[in-house]
């Protein structure tokens, strides 16, 4: 109920150009606790980067900042990224299977329906891109 409305990650400013900052942050992977993470490929404890508008703000390269993403946007991203394609997959499978009675057809249809889905995402990428706004906050 009183959960924070934003998700924050600590990051470092990598580069600033044209009022945009590239901010790198560490995404903890599921294996974050594992002692072999340093060597285990599967444990992608990876540096991720985001680009943020910082026009009018003063940041320096190397400065620690908090990357902030509204929680609702995170959930939206989850929807676009995983939930919708998942639903699409299921629905297509069942519909095509139901109509044709062919597993192969159903399965392949389900797989290939992802192509137009991602195609759609690609078409609307600027629109979607505008939705996902991060901002950065000075580290306190």
């Amino acid at each position, binding site marked *: 109920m009183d959960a924070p409305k934003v998700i924050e990650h600590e990051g470092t400013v990598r580069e600033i150009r044209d009022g945009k900052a590239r901010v790198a942050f560490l995404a903890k992977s599921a294996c974050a*606790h*594992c*002692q072999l993470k*340093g*060597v285990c*490929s599967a444990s992608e404890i990876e540096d991720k980067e985001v680009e943020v508008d910082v026009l009018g703000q003063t940041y320096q390269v190397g400065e620690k900042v908090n990357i902030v993403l509204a929680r609702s946007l995170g959930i939206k991203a989850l929807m676009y990224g995983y939930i919708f394609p998942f639903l699409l997959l299921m629905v297509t499978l069942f519909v095509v299977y139901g109509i044709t009675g062919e597993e192969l057809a159903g399965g392949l249809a389900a797989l290939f329906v992802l192509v137009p889905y991602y195609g759609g995402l690609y078409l609307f990428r600027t629109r979607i891109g505008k939705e996902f706004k991060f901002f950065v906050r000075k580290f306190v």
Partner: protein
Amino acid sequence: MNQWKNFSKGLIAENAIFVQVLGMCPTLGTTTSAYNGLGMGLATTFVLVMSNIVVSMVRNYIPDKVRIPSFIVIIASFVTVVELTMQAYLPALFEELGLFIPLIVVNCLVLGRAEAFASKNTIWSSTLDGLGMGLGFTLALFMLGSVREILGSGSWFGLKFIQGDGMLLFVLAPGAFLALAYLIAIMNKFNRKNA
């Protein structure tokens, strides 16, 4: 001396299960008895040693970027070898271990050693490393299997020493978690004292 260390570190100091808490799935899933634990441990050890050997053999010829996929292929091949061999000659055990034999492929321990050690060390060191790690893993599985079998069925390697049943829970899923929890806790204590 150093070679000894390559071998021995996996037994206790860097024990995959008690210290590093890796590869928990087979650890929990296959240790209903001492025999099963031992079998799973040895199967994993085999894959670990063989893949370590092969990886260290080819390490200089594999370009960096396809390192991981190549390793996966190598490991998966050995897993399949184990699978086929067990199916042929140890069908009963294979049935007991079931799913977990193919899952050796994704055991972080195997890939982890290939990537962390074998890809940077000589064949001999890698063999010892694999052997040590594998035996440490086997040891832990064997211990867990023993505990669960003794408490759960009142027997060891199938030899009954009490009448009737043991505490059934220990051969079932919850028993696996509980037994492992307390084994790790005891090992922690033991290790900390040594350290």
